[in-house]
C-alpha cells in the first residue's frame, strides 16, 4: 500500500544560523527509515514520465521500488546503469524542472523526492558498498576526452564500460571541472566528487591533469600523433562576462569564477592552503543564477553582509528553487529589479559602493522573459567593499582557435548535432561547450549521447 502523504519527507539540514558560518554540507540526507517511507510514495507508474524527464533516463520507479524494499545497494546499481555520478546528481540537479516536475504525485501535493532518494542510495553505497570492477573486455580502441567535468566524465565512464581505452585531459591539477571549482563544498562535498571520480578510474579511465589541450597538445595531434580514434570535447563554458560598467577594474571586483575558484578549488578559506582571499565586510553579487547563489553564500560564510542584485523579479530568478530558499534562510538580502550602473571606488582604488537603478518589467523579449527596463530617476547606492559578477559565462576559445575545421556559432559555442557530432570527423562535443552555460545533468546527458555516438562511429569505421 503506497504512502499517500501529500508532502515529501523533509530532509534534515543544518540550521541556517549555524551553517552560514561553516562550509559543511547544508543538507544532511535521509535515514534508511525515511528513505523507505519516501520511496513508498512512488506509485510505480506503468508509463513513468519521470524517466523521460531525466536527461540520462535513470530508471526511477525501478530504483525507488528497490529502496522501498530496503535493497539499497541494488537500488544504487540500478541508478548506476545509466548515470555515472549519482551522488552528484542527487545533490545538484534541478529536479523540480526535470524528473520531479513530471511526477503524478505532484499534481495533487508534492512530487516524490526523487533527488533525495538518489542521493540516499549513492551515499549508502559510499558508506557500505564495495566498488566492484566489472568484467570489462577491452576492445583495443583509444578515445580522448578533453575536460574532466560532468560531460567529459560521463562520456569517459560510458566508453570505458564499453571496453574503450579512455584518457581524459584536464587543464587543472584536479579532475571534476565545475563540480570542483564551481559548486561549493556546502552544496557538494569535494570528497564525494573525488570518490565518484575514483570509481570511474576503477573502470579503467585514465586522467591526465595539468594538460591544456589546445596549448600543450592540439586535438589534431591527439588524433594523428597519439593514436586516438575519436575525441570528445567537454571543455565547458569558463569564460566569465563582465558588465563593462565604470569601476570594474577596482580592487574588490571579481568574476564569480575567480571568487569561487579561490574558495572551492584552491581552498582559500582554510588556513592550511596558501591561496589568499580577502574577507570583505559587505558584498554585492550581481546575477540571479545558481552561480550567483553559490558566490553569495560563500561570501556570507566568510563573514560578509551579502546582497544579491538582480535586474528581473523573483519569478525570473534562474537559480534552483532550493538554492534561493537556502540563501534567503541564511540571511542573503535580495535586491530584485535592480541593475548596477557603476562601481564607486575610494582614493586607493578599493570598492566603496555600487550605484544601481530600479527596473520595471516590460514586454517579453526573445528569451520569452519580460524585458527589464530602467525606471527613470531611481538611482540608489549600496555601500559595499566588494562586487562579484555572476553574469554567466561563455565557452573558452582555446580549442576553437587551435582545431582546424571545428565550426563554432556566433556565441563561441561548438556546433554539434544531438549526438554530439561536430563539423570535424571523429570529433564530438557536449555540455556547456556546446550549449553555453547550463546544468550539470544536461552536460551529463550530452556526454552520454556522445559516448553512444562515438561507439557507433568507431564500430562503423573498423
Amino acid at each position, binding site marked *: 500500500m503506497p504512502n499517500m502523504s501529500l508532502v515529501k519527507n523533509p530532509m534534515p539540514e543544518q540550521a541556517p544560523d549555524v551553517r552560514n558560518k561553516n562550509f559543511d554540507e547544508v543538507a544532511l540526507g535521509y535515514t534508511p527509515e525515511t528513505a523507505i517511507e519516501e520511496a513508498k510514495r512512488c506509485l510505480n507508474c506503468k508509463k513513468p514520465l519521470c524517466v523521460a524527464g531525466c536527461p540520462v533516463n535513470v530508471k526511477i520507479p525501478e530504483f525507488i521500488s528497490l529502496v522501498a524494499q530496503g535493497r539499497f545497494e541494488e537500488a544504487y546499481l540500478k541508478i548506476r546503469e545509466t548515470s555515472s555520478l549519482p551522488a552528484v546528481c542527487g545533490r545538484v540537479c534541478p529536479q523540480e524542472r526535470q524528473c520531479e516536475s513530471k511526477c503524478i504525485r505532484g499534481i495533487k501535493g508534492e512530487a516524490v523526492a526523487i533527488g533525495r532518494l538518489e542521493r540516499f542510495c549513492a551515499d549508502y553505497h559510499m558508506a557500505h558498498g564495495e566498488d566492484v570492477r566489472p568484467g570489462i573486455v577491452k576492445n583495443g580502441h583509444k578515445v580522448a576526452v578533453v575536460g574532466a567535468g560532468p560531460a567529459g566524465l560521463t562520456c569517459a565512464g560510458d566508453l570505458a564500460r564499453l571496453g574503450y581505452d579512455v584518457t581524459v585531459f584536464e587543464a587543472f*591539477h584536479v579532475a571534476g571541472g565545475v563540480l570542483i571549482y564551481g559548486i561549493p563544498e556546502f552544496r557538494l562535498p569535494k570528497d564525494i566528487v573525488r570518490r565518484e571520480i575514483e570509481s570511474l578510474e576503477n573502470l579503467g579511465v585514465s586522467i591526465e591533469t595539468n594538460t591544456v589541450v589546445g596549448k600543450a597538445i592540439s586535438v589534431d595531434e591527439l588524433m594523428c600523433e597519439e593514436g586516438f580514434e575519436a575525441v570528445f570535447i567537454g571543455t565547458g563554458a569558463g569564460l*566569465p562576462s563582465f558588465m563593462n560598467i565604470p569601476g570594474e*577594474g577596482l580592487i574588490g571586483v571579481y568574476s564569480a569564477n575567480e571568487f569561487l575558484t579561490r574558495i572551492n578549488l584552491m581552498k582559500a578559506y582554510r588556513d592550511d592552503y596558501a591561496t589568499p582571499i580577502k574577507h570583505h565586510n559587505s558584498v554585492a553579487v550581481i546575477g540571479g543564477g545558481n552561480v550567483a547563489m553559490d558566490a553569495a553564500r560563500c561570501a556570507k560564510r566568510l563573514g560578509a553582509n551579502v546582497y544579491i542584485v538582480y535586474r528581473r523579479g523573483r519569478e525570473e530568478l534562474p537559480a534552483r528553487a532550493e538554492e534561493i530558499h537556502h540563501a534567503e534562510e541564511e540571511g542573503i538580502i535580495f535586491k530584485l529589479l535592480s541593475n548596477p550602473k557603476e562601481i564607486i571606488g575610494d582614493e586607493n*582604488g578599493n570598492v566603496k559602493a555600487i550605484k544601481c537603478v530600479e527596473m520595471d518589467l516590460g514586454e517579453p523579449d526573445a528569451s520569452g522573459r519580460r524585458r527589464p527596463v530602467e525606471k527613470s530617476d531611481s538611482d540608489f547606492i549600496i555601500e559595499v567593499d566588494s562586487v562579484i559578477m555572476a553574469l554567466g559565462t561563455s565557452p573558452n576559445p582555446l580549442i576553437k582557435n587551435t582545431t582546424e575545421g571545428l565550426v563554432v556559432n556566433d556565441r563561441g559555442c561548438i556546433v554539434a548535432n544531438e549526438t554530439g557530432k561536430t563539423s570535424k570527423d571523429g570529433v564530438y562535443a557536449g555540455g556547456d561547450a556546446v550549449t553555453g552555460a547550463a546544468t550539470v545533468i544536461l552536460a551529463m546527458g550530452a556526454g552520454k549521447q556522445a559516448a553512444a555516438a562515438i561507439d557507433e562511429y568507431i564500430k562503423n569505421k573498423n
Partner: protein
Amino acid sequence: MNKIIEKRVLNENVVLMKIYAPRIAKKAEPGQFVIVMPSEKGERIPLTIADYDREAGSVTIIFQVVGATTMEMSDMNEGDELFAFTGPLGTPSHTEGVKKVAVIGGGLGCAIAYPQAKKLHSLGAQVDMIAGFRNKDIIILEEEMKAASTRLFVMTDDGSNGNRGFVTNKLEELFEAGEKYDEVIAIGPLMMMKFVCKLTEKYGIKTIVSMNPIMIDGTGMCGGCRLTVGGKTKFACVDGPDFDGHLVDFDEIILRSGTYRETEAKAREAHCNLMKMKVKGE
C-alpha cells in the same frame, strides 16, 4: 614529472630552475608562461618561460622570492618535483618581420625579455638590449643577454657597475643618437614599462609590453588577470601576456597589482620567523 633538474641562485632574491616537462618544452615559444604549484596546498602562480630545450625536454623558469609560494619554491632542490606545472599558456610573442629592435628588461623582467631577444637575434634582427638593475650585486643573466643581442647596455640605478641611469635614459640617448627601431619591447616593473611607453609614444615607436598580473587558472577562466587595453577588457592569460604598451591602462593595473600586498608581507614575516626557528633549532 615536473622534476627540478637544475637550480641556480642568481642573486639573493632570484632563483633559476630547469624543470623536466617534455610536453611543454616541445611547444613553448618566447612570451608564453606556465602555471606552477609547488605543493598540493600551494597557490597557482604564473611564471614566464625563460628558456626551453626541446631535446632535453626542459623548461627554465626564473622567479623572484616575494610571497609564500615563491618562498616555498626557493626551499625546493634539484631532484624535488613540483606538484603542478602547466603550459605553455598565453600567446607567443610576435617576432616576424622585426628587423631592428630595442629590448628592455628591468630587474627580473630581464628573464622574460631574454628569450624574446634570443629568438629575434636568432632570426637575424639587430637587437639592442638595455637591462636595468638597482645595483651591480643583483645583475642577472648578463652573459646570456650578451649572447642574445647585438649590443647590450647594463644600467644601474646607483651607478655601481659604472653605468648610472634608468633604462629610459639609455633608450632616449639611443633615440637622440638617431637609432631607428621597428619596435621596442619593454618588460619589467609596471612603473618602468609605463615610463618606457611614455617615452616611445613621444618618438612614435610601437612598443610591446609583457603583463604579469594576478592569475589563477591561466586559461581565461577566472578573469583575475583582466586589464584595460584600448578601452576594452582583456585577459592577460589568453589575449596576452604581450600587449601594445601605448594602449594599456597602466594606472589601473598598478592599483590592482597591490591587491594582495599585505598578504605577501605577512607571508614574508612568517617565513622569516620560521627560518629563525630553524636556525635556533627549535
